[in-house]
């Protein structure tokens, strides 16, 4: 892009034949031609920069859009939804005048290149989305996936990612209350670093990303703009990594959590004084995104003087300033008479703030540099009218063979001795082992409102000190299930997160998701994606929990090999009084253990099939969302009415995994009896969905059974909390000490 003479709009109009590097910036030929058609001339360099980042996969969702529409089309009726898909994050009514916003995002590719900073800036980005809605962030969660636990590169990536998430979140003062850690060779070159955040506000504090009111000022505040991740949005997030071309990996951004903490406080103070008309965080595509989205969502146009942007590097070109992804920046629209006060608050917090433009009467986004007009566009064409692809998709030809390779036919333990050794192997396997080594690097206590944090089924935060109102969140995803059947796999992820929230006593309200897939240019991957979205949308409709927002991460593959399709689902719930929450840990000897739900021979994609047979095949467990909803209602009622003292949902690893976890957490053992009609193996390892184990005080036994009976939920008495071992009568007993050593020793042995 030549800078002498300045490539202004007039210059572009006068020099139609100048060749621009649209291909290098990631645009396809027809996309570039569309830009020319929209503008009626060739774009200036600055305009090209904007269109190229905003039309990238990462920012425009061009491959996924046609499918994501279902989340709106099939959205269930929900009184709780205050702000739906399309804003920085969705907002849900949780009662008593409070609203909650939450969202999950990915920072997969940067975290592979520079694990610490990649993960840290992932947290920074999602938290800015939450602030931009007007909320105070109150917690974060981090669903993570890595390559094989014993692969040497995992030892590079995982500790860096965990330190980065902790380093950033801890410094912001956000308790980390949940997440996932999954190991699978398919994520070797593509770790999945998803990060979610929750924020709380009063209804009247909801803010939106729009610039309205001609004459209102556009204020850029936060960090100075540097050359960080220029082109990062389009290149880093959308390009397949190919070992042959490491030079294509541009520098990742470095985060400054301290700056972000100041940004949070000064933004909230400005909200409190009602100084902000519209607001947008600067994330991917930086100023290009913030200006075009603000202008596009508002009623008027916008004029920006790029010379006024505070720079860290004075040699940046206007194109680079527009594309820079420097972290910790926000853009606010402020009425002229309130600007002085806004700047004062920024100064109080030592945050640099500058008026860079204003809202205009027209409908154009105009950007000036050195006195020349270098951008003159309809902002909608940049922000919202990007290309949309109907990518071809097709069920892969290997899917049938995969499903025919039935896990239920794998050889099962023949003796009690063998059963016991398989239990030990499972409990000590990296995916089933305690993640304490990781989660103890996160602050769970900060803000003084944490009711439940890992390893509970969901994280829970008190929202109101007086009433005890609280919110709960759980994230789940199982790439193995989704590989076997992406439609069912997505629903299982939803069902599990829903169940995890209900298990703690909270009522599930809404969903956010992070859809991690391979290359959309591969029809097989595109089919997985389409199926997963369809499954999730259908599931949300059935459960009455709308999708409020989320994130799509494509191109997660190394060469030809895509990751397992990995839809990660976050479910948010509400609880009227956190004093009623149900913990995972066994509380008291003598309490009765009940298994809720049906147990079938379902081993496809199971932890057992992976750990014992290194096998992936067959069908995932069956989903019955009506049953999930009933189970949830029972768990919530039981918690509200004090009928259960602990509860744990059943998921990967089956019943034995859940019982061992409850026992270890409570420091109390259990004696279990294999119920009639089930063999010990199926009882212990089956991964049938829609189940939970609850501990019922003797005094509540009748009432609890009556409730389940009246509502038609199968309930089976399976044993009692007792002693210091987990015993399966007639089979084996394992001391808590032995179990603890295994469960807690695995991850440190691999990573410390």
């Amino acid at each position, binding site marked *: 892009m030549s800078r002498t003479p300045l490539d202004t709009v007039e210059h572009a109009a006068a020099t139609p034949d100048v060749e621009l590097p649209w291909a290098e910036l990631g645009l396809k030929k027809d996309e570039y031609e569309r830009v020319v058609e929209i503008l009626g001339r060739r774009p200036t360099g600055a305009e090209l920069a904007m269109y190229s980042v905003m039309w990238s996969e990462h920012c425009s969702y061009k491959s996924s859009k046609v499918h994501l529409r279902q989340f709106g089309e099939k959205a269930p009726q929900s009184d709780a939804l205050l702000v739906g898909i399309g804003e920085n994050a969705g907002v849900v009514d949780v009662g008593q005048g409070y609203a909650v916003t939450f969202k999950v995002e990915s920072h997969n590719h940067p975290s592979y290149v520079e694990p610490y900073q990649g993960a840290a800036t992932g947290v920074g980005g999602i938290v800015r989305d939450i602030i931009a809605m007007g909320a105070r962030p109150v917690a974060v969660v981090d669903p993570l996936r890595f390559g094989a636990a014993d692969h040497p590169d995992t030892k590079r990536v995982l500790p860096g990612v965990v*330190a980065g998430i*902790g380093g950033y979140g801890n410094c912001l003062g956000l308790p980390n209350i949940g997440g996932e850690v999954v190991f699978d060779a398919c994520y070797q070159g593509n770790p999945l670093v998803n990060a979610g955040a929750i924020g709380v506000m009063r209804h009247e504090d909801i803010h939106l990303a729009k610039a309205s009111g001609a004459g209102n000022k556009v204020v850029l505040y936060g960090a100075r703009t540097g050359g960080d991740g220029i082109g990062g949005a389009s290149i880093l997030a959308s390009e397949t990594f190919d070992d042959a071309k490491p030079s294509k990996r541009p520098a990742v951004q470095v985060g400054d959590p301290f*700056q972000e903490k100041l940004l949070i406080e000064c933004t909230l103070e400005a909200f409190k004084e009602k100084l902000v008309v519209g607001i947008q965080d600067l994330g991917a595509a930086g100023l290009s995104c913030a200006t075009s989205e603000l202008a596009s969502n508002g009623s008027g146009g916008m004029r920006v003087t790029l010379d006024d942007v505070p720079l860290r590097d004075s040699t940046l070109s206007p194109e680079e300033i527009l594309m820079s992804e420097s972290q910790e920046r926000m853009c606010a629209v402020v009425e002229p008479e309130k600007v002085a006060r806004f700047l004062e608050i920024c100064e109080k917090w030592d945050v640099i703030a500058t008026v860079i433009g204003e809202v205009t009467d027209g409908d154009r986004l105009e950007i000036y540099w050195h006195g020349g007009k270098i951008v003159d566009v309809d902002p909608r064409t940049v922000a919202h009218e990007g290309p949309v692809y109907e990518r071809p998709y097709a069920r892969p030809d290997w899917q049938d063979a995969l499903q025919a390779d039935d896990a239920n036919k794998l050889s099962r333990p023949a003796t009690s001795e063998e059963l016991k050794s398989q239990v030990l192997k499972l409990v000590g396997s990296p995916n089933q082992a305690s993640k304490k080594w990781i989660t103890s690097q996160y602050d769970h206590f900060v803000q*003084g409102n944490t009711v439940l944090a890992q390893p509970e089924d969901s994280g829970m935060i008190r929202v109101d000190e007086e009433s005890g109102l609280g919110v709960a969140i759980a994230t789940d995803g199982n790439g193995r299930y989704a590989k076997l059947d992406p439609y069912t796999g997505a629903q299982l992820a939803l069902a599990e997160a829903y169940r995890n929230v209900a298990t703690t006593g909270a009522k599930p309200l809404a969903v956010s998701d992070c859809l991690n897939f391979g290359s959309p240019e591969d029809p097989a991957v595109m089919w997985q994606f389409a199926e997963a979205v369809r499954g999730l949308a259908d599931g949300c409709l059935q459960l009455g929990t709308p999708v409020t927002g989320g994130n799509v991460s494509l191109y997660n593959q190394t060469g030809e090999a895509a990751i397992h399709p990995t839809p990660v689902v976050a479910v948010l719930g509400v609880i009227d009084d956190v*004093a009623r929450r149900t913990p995972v840990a066994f509380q008291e000897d003598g309490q009765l253990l009940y298994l809720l739900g049906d147990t079938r021979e379902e081993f496809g994609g199971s932890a057992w099939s992976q750990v014992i047979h290194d096998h992936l095949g067959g069908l995932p467990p069956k989903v019955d969302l009506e049953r999930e909803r009933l189970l949830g209602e029972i768990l919530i009622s039981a918690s509200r009415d004090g009928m259960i003292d602990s509860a744990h949902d059943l998921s990967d690893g089956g019943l034995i995994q859940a019982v061992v976890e409850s026992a270890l957490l409570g420091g109390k053992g259990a004696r279990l009896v294999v119920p009639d009609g089930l063999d010990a193996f199926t009882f212990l390892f089956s991964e049938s969905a829609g189940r939970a184990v609850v501990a019922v005080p003797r005094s509540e036994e009748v009432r609890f059974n009556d409730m389940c009976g009246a509502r038609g939920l199968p309930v089976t008495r399976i044993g009692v909390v007792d002693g210091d071992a987990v015993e399966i009568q007639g089979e084996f007993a394992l001391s808590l000490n032995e179990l603890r050593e295994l469960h807690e020793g695995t991850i440190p042995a691999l990573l410390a």
Partner: protein
Amino acid sequence: MTARIGVVTFPGSLDDRDTRRAIRLAGAEPVALWHKDKNLHQVDAVVLPGGFSYGDYLRAGAISRFSPVMETVIEQAKAGLPVLGICNGFQVLTEAHLLPGGMLGNDHLHFICRDQKLRVENADTSWTSDYTAGQEIHIPLKNMDGRYVADSYTLDKLEAEGRVAFRYVDFNPNGSLRDIAGITNEAGNVVGLMPHPEHAVEPLIGTGRTDGLPFFTSILKKLVNV
């Protein structure tokens, strides 16, 4: 009449709001103090809260130590004003040389968050009189730079004078010399510790224990009885 206890907010302070809540729950009146303001607004005691002031850049507490409010805090602490430094606040106190020794990164190089067992070694300070010497308590701990170090002369002196206020029990979470979790100055008005008593004041929240509340009731009794 109750006591006014100031809680300083530095840029990057995180536990200032929780600390104010703990003070309130103990029955005292919390007063927010601002790092740029030298005026302590007639408070009877000051808490320097936890967090990552200035991001813990350079060294934890090193930049805050030079803030305007600290000029007054240092001067008044020397004259007897009760001051409690929690975590980052403890780091500020060592950087300001109100307490001896220094804080370094945890020996295992990771941030650590856990429910920590402590022994109260000195129950005669302004902030610990509601405990009994030798009492064992559980208080949440969360830090990156919690390794207390000092030369052996200083350590011996602290021991001899009974100025080790808290010691880690069963598990040393950060490599602190002699398992030191907190110390006091000679006069007993300035106390610093790494664990977070303000996170252990309500039964439902955090670890669900209230072992931290006596910090705040100790100071309240002392101030109100005066």
